[in-house]
């Protein structure tokens, strides 16, 4: 056989096997067959190359090699004898007869190779089985010993089938165990979940009772009749006049019965920002507290505004209307008594809004916080657990009863959650309330202490009430302190800034005379805060007026630190630069002559001079280095004159080439020098090793391109070494990093050594 043929054959086989294709290239295989036809030497050669390719640890190579072999097997007797001589190995490499030698990755290709090989062996057996003993033996071996079912689509061996069965059995066992655990778990938790659900249910009922119950409440409580009225705004101001206009008659009746209820009602309405048709039980009892608080506020406001407003005292007005009503509706008395309605023509409109909105108030806070807790418990604990059970039961095929129970549980939990969602509980107010509560006075704390919400309370320390002067008064608390409500910075800033602007003189024009009066009264009282503040205000006014020169100062005069020169500004320094030497402290011994005072020119000069450093103005750097980097990018460093990597910064064009000719020349020169230098110490092999070890690009590819990777050699084959980008591999890369391992080992050995150093003379440590 000629050498050229030999080479051509090797080339062809290699090309065919490393193509990565699942079908052979027809032209190439034709050429191969053509050469093989010439002599049996060629077939010998092809046989050996094919066998060596079959031994490669890559299923794609093996598949292609097998296809070549089967092409030749059907054609050449010589090839058949050669192949059958080594049929055991051939089967091992293609059909995986030896479980110790599994087919190499990639898996899908291996599977394909296996089934193809089995099919081919069967067809060979039918064609040549009688003539070639070893083929028949091999076929029987596969059939009898390996129990390969050639009819089976997957052509699995008995071992594989058994393995699969075992896996299935194991899975079943695991599932069963899990199911048992889950059912036990459910048994344990069932009561707990039920209790939680009941709790949730009762909380819900507290927040939002059933409609039937509310009707009763409406009927039983006179105050709720007014609830049908709409009060869309959440105004702080009481609108008695509007109230009266809207439902004069009912109100009259109520006022007759109980005038003090009036306040409560209005407050109640204010609380319900939207048209709440359905009253909550909660609010009924919460009214008490809210109303009382409101009353306080109202009184204050009334005090403040009484004279500014028209002075429409609601009580007065109501009493007038009472009289009117008495005259008009004497005849309807009976009807009212019977029906509770004022007139026959009266119609009651109930506006039922589609969505409920529960707003948190101080009084339902406890309930709502419980609801929040339960909600959290359900969403984060119970519901996932129940869902897990359901999944396990479905997977393991549990009994119907168990599954139904779990499903019921899940349904009721979800229903509870749904109900909670529909309530639209407003949590934000709650947070704000807590904040506010912390700022409020101690009484508020006491109130809150009654609540269950302990955890919120514990976060805030009790602060004793302050007496006397307080330099900072928050804006919203000024009224509470009886201070000027308009913001004035003077009170806070006086003690700190002497040169600040003079305090505005009672700039508030809207200061009502009443309040002024009250302030004055308070100022008479030396114990009050107002008195202290007043006193301070007078003082500051004096100090600011005593420095008229500061007002004449130019605005842009530089501010310099205070120094000796300023201390003696415009004065003769009496003893500047003189150093007084201390006389000897000795009891008897005294030096002969003592210069008590020494003039020091340096000191003198110092006391009269002042250093003013002039650093210049900072101008930000706007240019970039723009030297070309390896990856086609430009250097983005913004140095003023010199880039630490690319030398002094010169003007460059878009591609990073220097604009000036001499710069370009210099750069080229440098590059050449660098290239020469690199060869000395940068060993490409070593660097590649290091790169492979560390996984960082050190630039070995740039240094030398001598070595060609295997990947490049056969680009068509799928890459086996390609590491899977799994979380595990990523973690492995980090954890088993060499430097990390070394670091850990170092730390541990250090710890060990320290212990040894410390306790080495104690026998029980010394032994370790």
């Amino acid at each position: 056989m000629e050498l050229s043929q030999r080479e051509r054959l090797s080339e062809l086989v290699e090309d065919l096997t490393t193509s990565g294709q699942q079908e052979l290239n027809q032209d190439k295989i034709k050429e191969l067959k053509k050469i093989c036809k010439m002599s049996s030497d060629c077939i010998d050669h092809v046989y050996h190359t094919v066998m060596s390719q079959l031994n490669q640890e890559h299923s794609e190579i093996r598949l292609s090699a097998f296809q070549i072999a089967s092409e030749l097997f059907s054609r050449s007797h010589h090839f058949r004898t050669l192949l059958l001589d080594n049929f055991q190995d051939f089967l091992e490499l293609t059909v995986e007869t030896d479980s110790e030698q599994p087919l190499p990755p990639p898996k899908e290709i291996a599977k394909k190779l296996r089934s193809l090989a089995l099919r081919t062996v069967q067809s060979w057996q039918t064609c040549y089985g009688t003539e070639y003993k070893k083929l028949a033996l091999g076929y029987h071996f596969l059939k009898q010993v390996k129990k390969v079912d050639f009819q089976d689509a997957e052509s699995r061996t008995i071992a594989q089938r058994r393995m699969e069965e075992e896996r299935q059995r194991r899975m079943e066992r695991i599932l069963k165990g899990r199911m048992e655990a889950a059912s036990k778990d459910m048994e344990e938790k069932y009561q707990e979940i039920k209790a939680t659900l009941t709790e949730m249910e009762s909380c819900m009922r507290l927040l939002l009772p059933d409609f039937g119950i509310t009707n009763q409440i409406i009927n039983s409580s006179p105050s709720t009749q007014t609830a049908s009225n709409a009060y869309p705004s959440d105004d702080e101001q009481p609108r008695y006049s509007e109230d009266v206009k809207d439902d004069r008659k009912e109100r009259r009746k109520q006022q007759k019965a109980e005038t003090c209820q009036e306040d409560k009602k209005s407050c109640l309405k204010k609380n319900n920002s939207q048209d709440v048709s359905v009253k909550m039980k909660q609010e009924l009892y919460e009214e008490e507290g809210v109303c009382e608080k409101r009353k306080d506020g109202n009184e204050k406001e009334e005090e403040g505004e009484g004279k500014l407003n028209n002075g429409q005292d609601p009580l007065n007005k109501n009493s007038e209307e009472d009289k009117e009503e008495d005259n008009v509706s004497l005849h309807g008395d009976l009807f009212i008594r019977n029906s509770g309605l004022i007139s026959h023509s009266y119609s009651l409109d109930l506006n039922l809004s589609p969505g409920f909105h529960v707003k948190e108030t101080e009084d339902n806070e406890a309930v709502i916080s419980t609801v929040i807790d339960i909600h959290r418990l359900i969403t984060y604990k119970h519901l996932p657990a129940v869902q897990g059970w359901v999944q396990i039961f479905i997977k393991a095929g549990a009994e119907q009863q168990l599954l139904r129970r779990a499903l019921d549980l899940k349904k009721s939990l979800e229903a509870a959650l749904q109900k909670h969602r529909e309530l639209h509980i407003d949590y934000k107010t709650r947070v704000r309330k807590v904040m506010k509560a912390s700022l409020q006075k101690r009484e508020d704390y006491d109130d809150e202490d009654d609540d269950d919400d302990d955890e919120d309370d514990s976060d805030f320390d009790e602060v004793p009430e302050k007496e006397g002067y307080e330099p900072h008064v928050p804006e919203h608390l000024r009224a509470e302190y009886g201070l000027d409500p308009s913001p004035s910075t003077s009170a806070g800033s006086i003690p700190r800034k002497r040169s600040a602007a003079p305090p505005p003189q009672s700039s508030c024009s809207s200061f009502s005379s009443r309040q002024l009066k009250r302030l004055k009264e308070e100022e008479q009282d030396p114990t009050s805060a107002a008195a202290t503040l007043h006193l301070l205000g007078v003082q500051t006014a004096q100090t600011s007026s005593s420095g008229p020169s500061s007002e004449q100062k130019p605005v842009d005069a530089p501010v310099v630190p205070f120094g000796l020169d300023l201390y003696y500004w415009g004065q003769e320094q009496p003893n500047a630069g003189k150093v007084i030497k201390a006389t000897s402290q000795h009891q008897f011994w005294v030096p002969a002559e003592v210069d008590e005072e020494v003039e020091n020119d340096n000191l003198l000069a110092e006391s009269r001079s002042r250093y003013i450093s002039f650093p210049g103005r900072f101008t930000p750097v706007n240019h970039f280095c723009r030297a070309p980097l390896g990856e086609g990018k430009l250097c983005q460093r913004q140095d003023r004159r010199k880039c630490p990597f690319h030398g002094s910064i010169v003007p460059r064009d878009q591609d990073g080439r220097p604009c000036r000719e001499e710069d370009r020349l210099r750069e080229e020169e440098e590059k050449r020098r660098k290239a020469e230098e690199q060869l000395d110490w940068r060993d490409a092999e070593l660097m590649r090793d290091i790169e492979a070890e560390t996984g960082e690009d050190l630039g070995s590819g740039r240094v030398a391109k001598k070595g060609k990777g295997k990947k490049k050699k056969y680009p068509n084959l799928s890459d086996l070494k390609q590491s899977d980008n799994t979380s595990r591999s990523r973690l492995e890369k980090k954890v088993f990093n060499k430097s990390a391992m070394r670091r850990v080992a170092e730390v541990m050995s250090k710890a060990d050594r320290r212990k040894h150093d410390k306790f080495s003379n104690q026998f029980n440590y010394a032994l370790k």
Partner: protein
Amino acid sequence: MLGFLTARQTGLDEPLRLRRAESTRRVLGLKLNPDRDLERIHGNGINTIDIEAIEGRYLLSGGADGVIVIYDLENYSGQQQYTCKAVCTVGRSSRYVHKFSVETVQWYPYDTGMFVSSSFDKTMKVWDTETLKPAEVFEFDGNVYSHHLSPIARKHSLIAVGTKNPKIQLCDMKSGSRIHVLQGHRAEVLSVQWSPRYEHILATASADSKVKVWDVRRASGSLFTLDQHNGDKSKASSEAVNTAHNGRVNGLSFTGDGLFLLTTGTDDRMRLWNSATGENTLVNYGKVCNESRKRLQFTVSHGCSPEFVFVPCGSSVAVYALHTGELVTMLRGHYNNVDCCEFHPDYQELYSGGKDCNILAWVPVLRAPDLEEETTCTIKSAAGQTAVNPAFQDAWSSDED
């Protein structure tokens, strides 16, 4: 061949010389023969085979599933293609069948009417071939690895039995009882073999890596223990004194004349010993793969001028020259480990059984017809060959041109 024949005709050579030359040639030409087949009876691995010495016609095989089969090797059909029939079978359905794997089967050396089998079910059975019923059952307290009947014994009818127990049992077929125990080994006895030269000499191989040679007339102990270092203490570490191998010794075979003893061990070595002195002849056979935990049945050719050893070696049978240690060839045909092989001295055929349930017959290739012969019937043979074996023809399709 012609030279041998003329030399024989003129009386220059002894008759033995021609015979030896021819049988050597035949042994060297052993090949897996497509014409000779044995019926597939065993559904499991074959542990042991034995060919009877009287006619050389019947082959006994014992399988890992307890089945024992007797094959008729003789081809009376007159055709080249022949499948050896199973004459009779002790199958799983028989009530006398061994419960577990049959480890050793052996014909009674003087008559095919009787054979002996031993098994992992802790019994050894002496069978009547006609009725296929055990005439005698010996029970032991451990797995029976091996037993052997002396092929030449006239004065005794002892069966040496190697079991899991380190003591070697001697069972007398005359009385049907265990009459004697040989003590000396420290681990299970994997193989026992009577000398084909002296009827009272017995060799035993054990898992304690020792091989002992006994004279059963002497009750006190073994004659000697084979030492791989030939008593050279400096080479042997203290625990390796008097060991034949550095692992379990699981194969034992005398040469046909009984002058030499061959042993194989799990240290992948085969050693040839002088059976008279116990001296290691230091023949280097190279690596002989051997992973078997049980007895390995190997055989030595008979009647060739350089003798050959056939040793199972993985999934093939290795053929070594006995005295030079040269690997002659590897007989590859089994698809799984080979456990036993037996040489047919009359036809120079080799039978081997393995875990792939096959018993393969390795038959010498027929001498190619001589040139003169061919000229007379060239056309006929050529035509006949194409007619007979179309499968051997190349089938290049025309589109390759």
